[in-house]
């Protein structure tokens, strides 16, 4: 079958360069940083979609996460950015890699046609929608490029977490949720095939019944 690895990565590089250039040209150094992070983000996810092997996709996803973290920092949300890097790159990605390792490699499941079709269709849709939106927005009324300078800092975030009139409830809930989720994850993950007898009770398992049902419906 046709293998478009080279053209793809070539195109990707071009896209990268283009982003950097556009960044510099539009806003100098911060622009460069922005272009870099944005390119990293999108490129990472593109590779993730494109790559045939799950492992590579997972690693390419790291690019996305880092890029997003960069964007956060550019937006002055350095704490969020750090959290992003720690949790995502450090935690979630590790988890995903576990998943990758525990599931069999299947090199044949990627269909270029599907990928291409999906990209084109989705891209077209999003491009169209965002174009329309952009057309409707009066950019004049939006805050210009100069940002209001930051007054809040990480300290406020910490206070916000524990201040009873702020986010303490949500914070506690999140904590509980995490605990429950992890316990649940362990619980589910530990089960063996023997525990899945009820699955045989589920009607779809007896094919005859299924066929009968389909026939009746028809």
């Amino acid at each position, binding site marked *: 079958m046709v293998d478009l690895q080279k053209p793809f990565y070539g195109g990707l590089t071009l896209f990268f360069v283009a982003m950097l250039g556009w960044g510099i040209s539009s806003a100098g150094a911060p622009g460069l940083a922005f272009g870099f992070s944005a390119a990293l983000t999108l490129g990472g996810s593109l590779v993730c979609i494109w790559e045939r092997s799950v492992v590579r996709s997972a690693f390419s996803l790291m690019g996305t996460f880092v890029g997003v973290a960069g964007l956060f920092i550019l937006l002055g949300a350095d704490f969020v950015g750090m959290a992003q890097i720690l949790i995502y790159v450090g935690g979630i990605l590790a988890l995903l890699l576990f998943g990758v390792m525990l599931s069999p490699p299947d090199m044949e499941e990627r269909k270029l046609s599907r990928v291409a079709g999906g990209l084109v269709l989705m891209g077209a849709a999003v491009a169209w929608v965002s174009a329309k939106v952009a057309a409707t927005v009066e950019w004049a009324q939006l*805050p210009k490029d100069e940002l209001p300078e930051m007054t809040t800092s990480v300290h406020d975030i910490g206070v916000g977490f524990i201040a009873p009139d702020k986010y303490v409830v949500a914070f506690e809930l999140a904590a509980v949720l995490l605990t429950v989720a992890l316990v649940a994850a362990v619980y589910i993950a530990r089960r063996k095939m023997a525990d899945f007898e009820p699955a045989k009770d589920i009607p779809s398992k007896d094919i005859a019944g299924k066929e009968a049902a389909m026939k009746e419906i028809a």
Partner: protein
Amino acid sequence: MGLGAYIAVSAALFALGVVAIVVRRNILYVLFGIEMILNAANINFVAFNRFNGDGLDGRMFAIFVIILAAAEAAVALAIVLNVYHLFNTTKPAEVDLLRE
């Protein structure tokens, strides 16, 4: 860089996430896609929070989203493993018990 740029990036990331979920036939890509989408949302949160005045809410939301993502990833991964146990496949297309 203006607000528009950030929104554009997040929109594109969102789109890619959806594509990742839809076009690939491996259940892990569903997870990947979900992460991308969450990240896209986060970008929006933080960007808007930054560009009109500075409250905390946007960032707070972003943090909570990240927490949720962590939980979700853990559970999802466990489910993936079980699905693999049960059906000997990671192709969501063949996991159609929901149908019955």
